[in-house]
């Protein structure tokens, strides 16, 4: 029982991060039909820049988070301006995706220059002291990750469903051409998608850094886990993608804890294959992914 609760909790923690990356990917995908392969790099930037701002520069914690997010936004803006926009003008979405793949190599290469190839200790913002809540043992850092996951879900929901701007995002998601005919500036929506996603992923990186350790090359795996989350849940909906992340995180922890971590990835892969066969657009996916 003790073991189960520990495993589920650590699964929820990792799953929250996968879910936030999945949510980020889905937001960009919905508005631009592009999978941003560089999304995991923002998680890496969050973790690595915390090392820089908090340890090297000695900034206070809140300022350090703001600085990390600002860095992430700047990189996202460059990504959108220099990679997405020129490619999207003339190439198909798959080529743009290869472009974001190349951008991921550039960002990871930049981090390699800045921080070197070794795994770094990322300072924790919240205490890592165990807290006992009944049968569950947790830490403030773990709770912060899960809480921020929930906060971002609510924030995304609020933006999408309670604001006029969100209405235009959803309109672009349903049909970009008609949305443009209605006077919606789809470029703005896409830029917002890149920036918002970057902020979400950076915060996820700041929080998960102390648990995963920071490394310049950690981004790719996180991108892939985010994709798995998004595909399992449904790429067409940010919330489905986030739920997929939680599912993958918990599964990974349970299979790794009770069986062998050797089997965790093949089992999740087989599961995703089965889901894709039965429901090609994810467990909670919507029809919108049918085209492209």
């Amino acid at each position, binding site marked *: 029982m003790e073991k189960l609760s520990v495993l589920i909790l650590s699964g929820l923690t990792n799953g929250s991060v996968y879910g936030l990356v999945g949510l980020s990917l889905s937001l960009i*995908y919905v508005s*631009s*039909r*592009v*999978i941003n392969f560089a999304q995991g790099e923002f998680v890496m930037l969050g973790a690595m820049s915390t090392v820089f701002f908090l340890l090297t520069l000695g900034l206070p914690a809140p300022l350090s988070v703001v600085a990390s997010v600002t860095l992430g936004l700047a990189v996202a803006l460059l990504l959108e301006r220099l*990679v997405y926009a*020129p*490619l*999207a*003008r*003339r*190439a*198909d*979405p*798959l*080529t*743009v*995706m*290869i*472009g974001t*793949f*190349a*951008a*991921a*190599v*550039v*960002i*990871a*290469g*930049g981090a*390699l*220059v800045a921080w*070197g*190839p070794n795994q770094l200790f990322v300072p924790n913002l919240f205490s890592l002291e165990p807290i006992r809540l009944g049968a569950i043992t947790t830490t403030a850092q773990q709770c912060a990750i899960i809480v921020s996951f929930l906060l971002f879900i609510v924030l995304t929901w609020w933006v999408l469903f309670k604001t006029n701007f969100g209405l235009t995002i959803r309109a*672009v998601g349903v*049909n*970009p*051409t008609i949305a*443009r005919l209605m006077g919606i500036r*789809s470029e703005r929506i896409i830029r917002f998608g890149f920036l918002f996603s970057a902020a979400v992923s950076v915060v996820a990186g700041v929080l998960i850094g102390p648990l995963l350790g920071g490394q310049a090359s950690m981004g*790719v795996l996180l991108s*892939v886990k985010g*994709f*798995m989350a998004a*595909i399992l849940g449904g*790429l067409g909906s940010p919330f489905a993608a986030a739920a997929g992340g939680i599912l993958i995180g918990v599964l990974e922890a349970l299979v790794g804890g009770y069986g062998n*971590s*050797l089997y965790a*990835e*093949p089992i999740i*892969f087989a599961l*995703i*294959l089965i889901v*894709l*066969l039965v429901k*090609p657009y994810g467990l909670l996916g919507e029809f919108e992914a049918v*085209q*492209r």
Partner: protein
Amino acid sequence: MNRLLSPTLLISVALLILGLCLPLIIQSSFQLRVVMLIWVYTILGLGFNLLFGLAGQLSLGQQGFFAIGAYAMALLQTKLGAPLYLAIPAALLLCALLAAIIGMPLLRLRSHYLAMATLMFGLIIEGLALRWFELTGGSAGVRVPPIAFGGWSLTRLDIYYFVFGLAVLAFLFHAFILSTAGGRALQAIRGDETAARALGVNVTTYKLRVFVLAAVFAGLGGVTFAIVSRQVDPSYSALTININLLTIAVVGGLRSRIGPVLGAAFVVLTPQFLTQFNEYEVLLYGTGLLAFLIFVPRGLAGLIERRGRAAPPAADSNAAKADTLRPASGEAR
């Protein structure tokens, strides 16, 4: 211009002569190894060109088949004692079977989904290579036994010509497919699956065939790589192979007969040149890749073919289509 004198043909012949003569010029075994790596990546790139360039199916898991081919070839010899002339076809057959099994469900998926699912496949193969210690030897890998057919043990030069010969065969086979009716059917699938189906193309069968074919090419690439390096380890299934493959496609140019060769040369030679920049290597590599993607969209082969005005009409009409189709309008019904 005379079709026979097209720049593609001239360059192909020049490459053939160059490939045959290079061992006479090159003395150091390191340089010979570098040239052999170009032929290895050529084989890998040719398969990817069929799958993505021709049929438009993006797989990011080719490194998985690359590793399976190499491991199967090595393990069949070390564990089962199979001779090399049996181990190579068996390894390719294994790649084909596996591709058929995972291809049947995967190819029902479109574009992004296929790309992601195949990427997962590649990562799982890497995980197995690293952690299935009893079979693969973990990160230490497997040593490939001396390369010999029966009693004839191959010298360094023999190995070169063996690898080069396989690359030439792959090149000819690839060019042959590009000019058959099947090749046209695959192009039709890339253009529009529904329209292709309406024209009587059996889309599912063709997609599966090209997926299996690309896996066999990748497996052959792995086999030749293992023959060249005499050691199989998990780096065969690493994401680097995949990045190299995308670089071949981007730099060499898609849908061209010589693109994969030019791309392979770039992918092997550039790192040799970049190592002097130490920690900046990855950054420079990525930036170069991005620059090519944005400023030279049809790659080196595209530059050459445009100069010779011998670009195949199919590629042209597709470029025109890509110009008019903004990604946002990708879901036109």
